[in-house]
């Protein structure tokens, strides 16, 4: 653990990503304690008010402006981050569990199981993920659970492919061979001997997937198929603000910046994490 932090502090990009991500997560966690204006209650006298920095700490201040019904954008961004982070991380963990399990199964068992699973991956890869997500959300209806399920569905294949490749080489290692020789069951080998060895790559895939899933979640909300109002979501704020593009630039600029900063921080941290666990690529970075 000590080595982990020492290495992180040495990488400027990784440290920047980690700190930024920590700030975003902390803001999301402690949003209710921040005394922000109610993100769902508007003030019609302050519709589309521009960002003002004077009197920042007075009750009526809107440092990032307000939207078309006078709701404070900063407050909506911070409250929106709770939903985005929760939906995205649940989806990535869910996809990770399914993908890792299937990857181990395909890699270790080989043969027919492997061939069927890899063909399934091929089939799913042939549909653009966005269209698949749209179709499934449209079929099931836009609810938080369905959005999480759809995002997990687009995520499992990436884990499965990478884990499978890892398992193919692990399978031939001596400790697996000897476990098999002393008669350990397939399940025991898969979970006790192979699983601990693929957790690290799964973690790396998961971090990089998180960035992709955050963008996709925003895109779904942008198209009106994500989390439904009045719950604030970044994609929805963008879509609503588009109407007032010519008169109120802040309604679309800040939600977008929030997405960019979050994704950037996750990517920077994820890139560093990958290099940390795989010194081979470190030289190429």
């Amino acid at each position: 653990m000590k080595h982990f932090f020492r290495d992180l502090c040495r990488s400027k990009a990784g440290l920047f990503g980690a700190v930024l991500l920590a700030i975003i997560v902390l803001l999301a966690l402690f949003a209710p304690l921040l005394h922000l204006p109610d993100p769902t209650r508007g003030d019609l006298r302050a519709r589309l008010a521009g960002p003002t920095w004077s009197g920042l700490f007075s009750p009526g201040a809107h440092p990032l402006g307000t939207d078309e019904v006078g709701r404070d954008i900063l407050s909506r961004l911070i409250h929106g981050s709770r939903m985005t982070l929760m939906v995205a991380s649940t989806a990535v963990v869910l996809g990770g569990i399914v993908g890792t399990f299937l990857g181990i199964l395909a890699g270790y068992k080989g043969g027919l199981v492997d061939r069927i699973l890899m063909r399934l991956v091929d089939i799913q890869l042939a549909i653009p993920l966005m269209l698949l997500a749209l179709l499934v959300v449209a079929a099931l209806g836009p609810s938080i659970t369905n959005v999480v399920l759809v995002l997990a569905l687009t995520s499992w294949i990436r884990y499965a492919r990478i884990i499978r490749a890892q398992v193919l080489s692990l399978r031939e290692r001596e400790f697996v061979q000897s476990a098999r020789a002393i008669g350990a069951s397939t399940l025991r080998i898969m979970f006790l001997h192979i699983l601990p060895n693929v957790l690290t790559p799964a973690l790396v895939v998961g971090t990089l997937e998180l960035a992709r899933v955050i963008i996709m979640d925003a895109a779904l909300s942008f198209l009106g198929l994500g989390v439904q109002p009045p719950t604030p979501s970044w994609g929805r704020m963008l879509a609503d603000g588009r109407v007032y593009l010519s008169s109120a630039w802040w309604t679309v600029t800040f939600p977008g910046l929030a997405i960019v900063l979050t994704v950037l921080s996750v990517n920077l941290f994820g890139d560093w994490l990958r290099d940390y666990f795989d010194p081979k690529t470190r030289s190429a970075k």
Partner: protein
Amino acid sequence: MTGFILRRLGESLLAVWGVVTIVFFVTRVLGDPAALLLPIGASPADIAQLRSQLGLDQPLIVQYGQFLLHAVQGDFGMSFQHSRPAMQVVLERLPATALLAFTAIAFGLIIGGIAGSVAALKRGRAIELVVMAVALLGQATPVFWLGIMLILFFGVNMGWLPTGGYGSWQNLVLPAFTLAVFVSASIARLLRSSMLEILKEDYIRTAKAKGLLRSTVFFWHVARNALIPVVTMTAILTGELLGGSVVTETVFSWPGIGRLIIQAIEAKDFPVIQAGITLIATIFVLINFLVDLLYGILDPRIRARR
């Protein structure tokens, strides 16, 4: 090689069949087309009549068989919205999507190729840092937001370019640039790391040591080998973009396949959804099939292994 081609062809066909099957069953969950087609307040008898007309009263497995039989011939039925064959409606949108996709890929490859090469060759200089920082930002920016920001700046504030629509080259600039940013960011990062790997190889040192021109070493030894992963990435990106850059097309009111399918999903126009997704998946699978063949030409090691 023939065995390999045949096996890949079989896999490709299997993938398309899988997509068609998934799309068929998912669209069935979307709702009852008969109830949607008739005006509100239609009598149950009318609905029943239309259901039997559309074959919806048959067992699901029979419907699926019928669907497959027609799909093979490119017949997905009539579009509910447009009252014309669904495949025809989709194919009409293909040129717009293809124009946008290929323009974006072309610009993305040029920008990303130059940026990635410069970053790899000028390792450790300030220019590498700048290129990589911009590429990282480009990858973190959702295309729909970038599109809106470009509209805001070049369309609304400056008034230089149209904010959306289709027809002239001015309409193409902003959506193509939006997608090209995304493409070039991915290409630049991939090309750089792939080049850095190759620059370390012994044969590059040999080539330099025997006094070859720097440009010869770069184009003949470095670039050719570094391009292999870029080809894969380009194929994937082309597939994604041809699949309708759903959100970009929506932001710029670009009349492509992606926007058509979104509208069809909203209107529950099943034949168009099915025809559109099948067409996209077929194009995607075909591109990947061709790329696999291309590998054999680019990389003799792969040819030998097979």
